C-alpha cells in the first residue's frame, strides 16, 4: 500500500465516519458525553463496513 492509497483510504473512512456520526446524532433524543462516545464507536463500525462492502464489490 503506497502513501497515496493509504491517504485515500483514510479520507474515505473519515468521510463515512463523519456521515454516520451525524446520523447517530439525528437518531438519539438527548445528547451527552457517553452518547457521543458510543455514537462515535458505532459510526466507526459503520465506516469500516461501508468501505469493506465497497471494496468487496469493486475488487474482483
Amino acid at each position: 500500500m503506497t502513501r497515496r492509497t493509504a491517504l485515500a483510504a483514510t479520507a474515505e473512512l473519515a468521510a463515512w465516519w463523519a456521515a454516520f456520526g451525524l446520523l447517530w446524532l439525528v437518531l438519539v433524543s438527548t445528547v451527552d458525553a457517553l452518547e457521543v462516545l458510543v455514537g462515535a464507536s458505532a459510526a466507526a463500525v459503520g465506516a469500516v463496513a461501508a468501505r469493506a462492502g465497497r471494496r468487496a464489490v469493486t475488487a474482483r
Partner: protein
Amino acid sequence: MNAWILAATILLGAGLTAALWGVASGPLSRRMVAQNLTTAVACPSLLLLAQGYHRPSYVDLALLLALLGPVGTLVFARLLADELAVATPAAWGLTWTAAGVSAAVVVAVCAATGPSRAMVKLLVTGVLLIGGNLVASRALQGGFRQVRGG
C-alpha cells in the same frame, strides 16, 4: 381518536386491503408489485400513528420498516429472478403514487414536529422510504437479469 389516527386507519384499511388482494391472486409480477406496495403503505401509517399517539420513539418502527421493507422486496426479486424475467412487472404509476403519498405524510408529520433533530430523523426516514421504494421497483423490472444460480 384524533385526525392523525383517523388518517392512519384510512390509509391502512384501503392500502393494505389492496396489497392483500394483489399479493394473494394473479400472476407473480402483480404479487411482487403488491408486496412492494406494503412497505409504502405501512411505513407512512406508522409515522402517522407515532404522531397520533404523541410518542416520538415510535418513529423507530417506521425507520426500521423503511430500511428493511425494500430489502425484503430485493430478496424476492433476486431469488425469483428467473420467473420474473418471463413477465416483467411494470407499475411505475403505482410506484410514483406511493412515493407521493409517502412524501405528503412525511411533510405533514414534519410540519407538526417543527424544526428540530426529530424532524431531521423524520426526513431521513422519508428519504430511505421513498428511495428504497423506487429502487425496489427498479429491481423488480430486470434488476437481477443476469443472475443464474448465484
